């Protein structure tokens, strides 16, 4: 069984194509997680986020994560897309997903993808508040 992997670091995430990217004739289930910019964090008003990436390494780590998911679950397709640059409220910043024959595998894999991405992929988020900017130095 060959698993297809689609990994990207982009200016803007194309959420409209997510089904086309993950649908597969042997998949009955597709699970997608999209992270987006919230208007506040710990009760402070957020104006925007800015993502810096170590792109070469980030792509490599995202591929390692995709392949690790493929060894843990029987998946047909996996995507990991992350943005770089400044993003405003409600804009998508990360989109991960997996497709599989049954839904257990795609749900578990999708959760693994986002959890592991947040721990391991060299991407840094700066929060813009009204009067200051802060590098988030702990994944939430």
């Amino acid at each position, binding site marked *: 069984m060959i698993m297809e992997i689609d990994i990207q670091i982009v200016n803007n995430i194309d959420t409209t194509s997510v089904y086309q990217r993950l649908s597969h004739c042997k998949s009955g289930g597709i699970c997608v997680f999209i992270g987006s910019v919230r208007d506040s964090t710990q009760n402070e008003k957020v104006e925007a986020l800015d993502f810096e990436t170590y792109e070469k*390494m*980030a792509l490599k780590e995202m591929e390692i994560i995709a392949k690790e998911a493929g060894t843990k679950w029987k998946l047909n397709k996996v995507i990991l897309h992350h943005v770089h640059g400044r993003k405003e409220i409600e804009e998508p910043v990360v989109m991960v997903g997996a497709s599989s024959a049954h839904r257990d595998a795609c749900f578990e894999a999708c959760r693994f993808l986002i959890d592991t991405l947040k721990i391991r*992929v*060299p991407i*840094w988020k700066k929060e813009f508040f009204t009067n200051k900017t802060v*590098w988030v*130095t702990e994944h939430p």
Partner: protein
Amino acid sequence: MKILLFGIAKDIIGTSSLLLKEAEKNPKTVGELKKLISNKYPKFKTLSSIAIAVNSCYAEDKTKLQSSDEIAIIPPVSGG
């Protein structure tokens, strides 16, 4: 020996890459580099963790460094 800096590491050191001149006593391992950095820039000690990537892979403290390696300081990541 050139070291890439990202996120808060860039702000602490004040530049996007660091050049260790041959004249300086260059670190031989990842562990030595970590010590050197956090002695020279004590603010790194306030971070919850600090990792070093060698040729875009996370490296262990015992990993040996060569001047041709692509070395990067990886402060706590916060993607997603």
